[in-house]
């Protein structure tokens, strides 16, 4: 009994070891690092009525080795560590297939952080591309989305001076106060949750403006020129940098370090405040008469950065005047943005709809099918307060000190 049992277990062991030999062929999904082409940024352009061009900025792995060997002499030639390759097709997936044909390595999307849409593509609508991007398993929801004036391919392959490649430069800049990050997750969320698929993404200057010869970045031009506005997944307009500033205030995207500079009449003196924190709250209200009102409450704090006016920071009465002056400036910029959105672009880019939906679900249900119409009628109320608790290192203006000496 015991013997037959041990023979059986030995047979089973033999069987198992034979089966395990099958596994030695390795994993089906093995991917070696030197078999993949890592995409760091992608651009999507409309080339003709139904042709879309996909451009990918691909990391060159050998470059860094070569550079260390040659002692950095190569970097002066302006050769970036990436190259751009593009292909066209009837859809983004076909374009990707064509793009793959040109490369000896497998395209790898897992590290792609940037999607840039060309202006024409954005105007045509980006929902087809989003379907591919979201469906394809290797994509990352955190990848940032941009729209570029002109062609997207011109944005890729820019050689920035400070960062290793333009995609790095873009994503770093988006984190600062001059722009904002809008990633795929946010875009999808807004498409699902807004009745007319409304969202905003940063709008870039045309690549031709940003670069000079051989793709070297021109130092005097900013990447960003505002925010583009999408409705029904088509780009319908854009806000310039001034209007974008107001947009940031309304949507609570304003970040610390933002500087509010106020030109104070009569002699055009300046009061400048550097923000330390800011919070915007939207309080919707529907009057019994059926008027839709949105109260925009801004509570910010900032430090004095420059003061060339006669106003004394330390004097309580004049301090209030200072606060008033700065708050007024913010309020004006919000007003300007809202005027543009309600009267010209006529799209709820600031997501008022969501606030109303949360507080007044019933009324919202009645208007949501053509919400943008109602949005134009929404009345605004303001409660903006930028407090300035600290004067900075100086407690008086230079002029005041001089005055005191007299």
């Amino acid at each position, binding site marked *: 009994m015991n013997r037959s049992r041990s023979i059986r277990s030995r047979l089973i062991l033999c069987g198992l070891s034979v089966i395990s030999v099958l596994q030695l062929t390795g994993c089906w999904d093995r991917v070696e690092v030197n078999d993949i082409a890592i995409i760091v940024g992608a651009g999507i352009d409309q080339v003709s009525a139904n042709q879309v061009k996909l451009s990918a900025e691909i990391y060159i792995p050998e470059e860094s080795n070569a550079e260390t060997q040659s002692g950095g002499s190569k970097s002066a030639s302006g050769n970036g560590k990436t190259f751009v390759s593009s292909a066209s097709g009837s859809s983004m997936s076909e374009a990707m297939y064509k793009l793959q044909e040109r490369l000896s390595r497998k395209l790898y999307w897992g590290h792609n952080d940037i999607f840039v849409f060309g202006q024409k593509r954005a105007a045509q609508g980006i929902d087809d591309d989003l379907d591919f991007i*979201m469906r394809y398993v290797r994509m990352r929801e955190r990848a940032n989305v941009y729209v570029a004036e002109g062609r997207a391919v011109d944005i890729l392959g820019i050689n920035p001076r400070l960062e290793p490649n333009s995609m790095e430069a873009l994503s770093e800049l988006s984190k600062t106060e001059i722009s904002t990050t809008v990633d795929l997750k946010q875009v999808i*969320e807004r498409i699902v949750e807004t009745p007319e698929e409304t969202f905003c993404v940063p709008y870039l200057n045309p690549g031709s403006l940003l670069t000079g010869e051989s793709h070297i970045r021109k130092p005097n031009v900013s990447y960003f020129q505002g925010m583009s506005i999408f409705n029904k997944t088509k780009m319908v307009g854009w806000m310039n940098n001034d209007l974008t500033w107001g947009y940031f205030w309304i949507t609570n995207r304003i970040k610390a370090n933002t500087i509010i500079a106020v030109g104070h009449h009569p002699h055009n003196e300046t009061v400048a405040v550097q923000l330390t924190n800011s919070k915007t709250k939207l309080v919707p209200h529907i009057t019994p008469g059926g008027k839709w009102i949105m109260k925009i409450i801004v509570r910010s704090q900032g430090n004095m950065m420059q003061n060339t006016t006669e106003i004394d920071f330390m004097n309580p009465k004049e301090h209030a005047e200072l606060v008033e002056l700065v708050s007024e400036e913010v309020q004006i910029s919000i007003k300007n943005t809202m005027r543009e959105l309600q009267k010209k672009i006529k799209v709820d880019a600031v997501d008022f709809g969501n606030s109303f939906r949360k507080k007044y679900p019933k009324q919202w249900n009645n208007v949501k099918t053509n919400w943008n119409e109602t949005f134009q009628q929404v009345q605004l109320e303001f409660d903006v307060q930028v407090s300035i608790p600290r004067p900075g290192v100086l407690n008086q203006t230079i002029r005041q000190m001089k005055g005191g000496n007299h």
Partner: protein
Amino acid sequence: MVQGRISAFQLAILMFQIILSSSVLLMPSISTTLSGKDMWMTPILGSVTGYLTIWLVLKLHHLSPNGSFIKLLVGTFGKWIGLSMSVAFIIFQIHILAITTRDYGEFIVTNFYLKTPIQVIIGAMLLLCAWVVKGGIEVMARTGQIFIPIITFCTLIICILLFPELNPSEILPMFERGVQPIMKGTIVVGGWFCQVTLILFILPLVKDVKVFRKWGYLTVTAITVMMLIANLTVFMLMGESTAFFNYPLFTASRYIAYAEFFEHVEAVVMMVWVLGEFFKISFYYFVIQKGIAETFTVTKPAILVVPVGLLLFTSTFWLARDFRMIGEFISNAGTLYIITGNVIFPFLVYCIARIKRKIGSGQAQNKA
């Protein structure tokens, strides 16, 4: 065969995992589709099914001679009807397990091993499960004691890491679409909770059944809390777009990024999923094997392990041709199917057995 005996606490841990393993990953999407912004309420309401099932299972257990459900069926309905009922019940469980196993394979093949044949992934898993089942319930319980806390911890870590990205106001307004959509979602969640019925077969192996009542209810509460955490995290992160994704928690974990280097933690979700499904599949596997052994009074249940494994392997592919068919089944008939088999059927058995017993005892009294 060394069947071993386990404690009520060990069974509670296993139960916790077999319900949670697939629900954490799959549920947020389904309940968002059905219940919209109120999806987070569904685990709370759905847990009622869990409590009821625990209550029912314990009642049935007390009714059954030697705690064997099959013997109760035979005793109540006579040999042939009782046996065919138990065969039907086991086939039903095989079907549910086939769906679970297929779901497991589909997730791995969709998101990680795009080129690996699904047969290999499922086969490897079943091989491992067969080994555990052969080892008996005690081995499974001890494995669970080691790994289930790790699984739970990893799931919680993912939710905690997502915390800064969450937007709590996403869940407003409440009751936007009324009560009916919430009920729809609740029934689906009930479909997960009712799988607790499986422990009917394990209870005879539990040393301290008396304290299991407490553990059972506690486990259902713990499951509810975990589901709630997962649902809220995913929904506050992705809002209504949760419904778009097949595996929202996986998508959410991909969104984790800290300081530009702590990224790509989605592999943790895969680990959670594989380990969790391992317990679920082996638990079901064990129950099916035990059920067959009891139905046909097999003296050495261990010889059933390999045949049952082969049956499971093939039935995962008989069941559906592709992802669409499984999805269609789960979202249409699946929930009612599983509730019918796991709650309504045992409940009817319980009622009939009680009535029969009452009549029986009444007759006995009359005779006396």
